[in-house]
């Protein structure tokens, strides 16, 4: 008999019938769970065809020297067969400890880590600050909230263009800085200021999501906890430290993980802000794109290898993050 809801009847040790043979068990398992498998089949198939197969193919490409000159292609009516060959792990070795590994990989790697850490920290702190302000009884807070969500509402590719106007050499930001007799940096040319500008724009884009999520979290904290804390004479800081932060824990751990993944993979902001003009401000994702599609000849193998390395970094990080949460008795919502 199949049950639609079997989440309550989780396996418990000791109340199992004597083990039957493997064939029998397989059959029972099939009878019990075929509904579930039928229901996840569409997604499983799509993932297999659209994600798993390309991924395996991509891993294979990283073991070759494929580029746009030796892969199969059609020019006019002539079809040219692929001539790339298998070279094993050379691509990875070259990326990680080849001659110019520092310039190509490690410098971008360090910048990517710095970028992710700074952006997520800024997103979280500013978002939490604004959420706390909006969670008070305050005249016009709905209006504030609507305005503050705006950067999220406008598509990134639109806002980044807006920022490019503002950051351009004679743009409004430098004009304003000039008027205040402050130095006006070359935002889109100088490496340091490119990085600064990228973090600034990404922070501007990312704060609303954090703010709204944390606001939701704040509103779900039971008000009686605050009353009790106040009765005990807790100061505002103590109430924040011992009621608000623990109450936000599960939302925080989820949005911080999402934020880290999204920022680490943030393609649009840097790509649209600089195009190919800023080799030193590229994070690993945009750098991998540049290798595969931004130059001639296109280096497919190295680009794919970067992609696999990036994915590996994220998976390792997420596993550790999860384990760390579990150790602290927290569950990730996802």
């Amino acid at each position: 008999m199949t049950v639609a809801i079997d989440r309550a009847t989780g396996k418990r040790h000791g109340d199992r019938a004597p083990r039957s043979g493997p064939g029998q068990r397989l059959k029972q398992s099939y009878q019990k769970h075929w509904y579930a498998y039928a229901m996840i089949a569409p997604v499983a198939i799509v993932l297999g065809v659209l994600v798993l197969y390309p991924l395996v193919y991509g891993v294979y490409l990283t073991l070759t020297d494929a580029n746009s000159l030796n892969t199969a292609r059609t020019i006019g009516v002539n079809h040219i067969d692929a001539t790339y060959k298998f070279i094993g792990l050379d691509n990875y070795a070259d990326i990680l400890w080849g001659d110019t590994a520092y310039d190509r990989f490690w410098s971008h790697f360090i910048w990517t880590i710095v970028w992710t850490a700074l952006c997520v920290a800024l997103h979280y702190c500013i978002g939490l600050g604004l959420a706390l302000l909006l969670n008070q009884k305050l005249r016009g807070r709905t209006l504030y909230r609507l305005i503050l969500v705006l950067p999220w509402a406008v598509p990134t590719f639109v806002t980044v263009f807006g920022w490019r106007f503002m950051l351009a050499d004679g743009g409004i930001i430098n004009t304003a800085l000039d008027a205040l007799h402050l130095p006006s940096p070359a935002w889109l040319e100088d490496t340091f200021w490119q990085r600064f500008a990228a973090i600034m724009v990404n922070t501007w884009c990312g704060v609303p999501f954090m703010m709204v999520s944390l606001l939701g979290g704040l509103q779900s904290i039971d008000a009686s906890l605050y009353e009790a804390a106040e009765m005990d004479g807790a100061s505002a800081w103590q109430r924040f430290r011992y009621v608000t932060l623990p109450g936000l824990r599960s939302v925080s751990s989820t949005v911080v993980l999402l934020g880290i993944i999204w920022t680490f993979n943030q393609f649009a902001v840097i790509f649209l802000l600089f195009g190919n003009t800023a080799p030193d401000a590229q994070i690993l994702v945009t750098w991998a794109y540049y290798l595969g599609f931004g130059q001639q000849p296109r280096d497919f193998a190295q680009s794919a290898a970067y992609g696999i390395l990036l994915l590996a970094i994220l998976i390792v990080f997420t596993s550790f993050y999860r384990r760390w949460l579990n150790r602290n008795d927290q569950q990730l919502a996802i």
Partner: protein
Amino acid sequence: MSTTTVESSAEASRTVPTQAPGRIRRRGDQSLAGSLVSHGILTVASLIALFPILWLVFLSLGPDKDDYLHPGGIWKKMTFGNYSFVLQHTAFFDWLKSSLIVSLGTTVIGVLIAATTGYAVSRMRFPGYRKFMWVLLVTQMFPVAVLMVPMYQMLSDLQLIDSYLGLVLVYCSTAVPYCAWLLKGYFDTIPFEIDEAGRVDGLTPFGTFARLILPLAKPGLAVAAFYSFLTAFGEVAFASTFMLSDTKYTFAVGLQSFVSEHDAQRNLMAATAVLIAIPVSVFFYLVQKNLVTGLTAGGTKG
């Protein structure tokens, strides 16, 4: 907490006389200074949030392509000329068509395929459940670079480069797991008693899902649809690599083409940007409350 009862009662007796008679401050009410500071910070933050957008709108009214460098002049010669030019003489409507086809295609396929899965992972525990959830999570972390090269190779083998179908397929690789994920969160909020009631009445799991749960889950389906629409609409990397012909560009790519092809016609770019941003932002505002609940539904419950 270190404050003892004695201290706090002493403190209370000290503060009572300073309170104005008749005004008792309740929790959540603020002192005047406090609320002024709050308003101050929020106003500054709002200005920062608004300014880049307003600036874009303002620049879009300047007729000259270099007006963004001396914006003071725009006040005297404000015009909607850029807008009418963009609407009449550029590929704006082609881009609109491409964007809509690709985004709606992704949305429909994504939601349709993901719905049953979301239900299954919400209600059933089957062998391999954890691994499956892990796969769904991992696909969320795919950097664009991972699938881009192999997808490009495969689609060019299938002659699907520069076709809407190709781009829809690419977007489905992220939209489908994403929707399944989101819908699981929503299905979790629907009481399990409803399923039990359906089962008692003799419905199969499919029947329960189709007749009872699906109608209840409409808001959740809407959230998943909005999300995949907005994601597909704003995607840049795949769209700019896989779409080659001018008329098939999505907005994300078309907007860039003003820089290269038309010698950086920034006034037109600004106008196009505003034309895209306004409907999308309105759409977003209508659904934003649900979007957040959808994304963190599981999160707030822990």
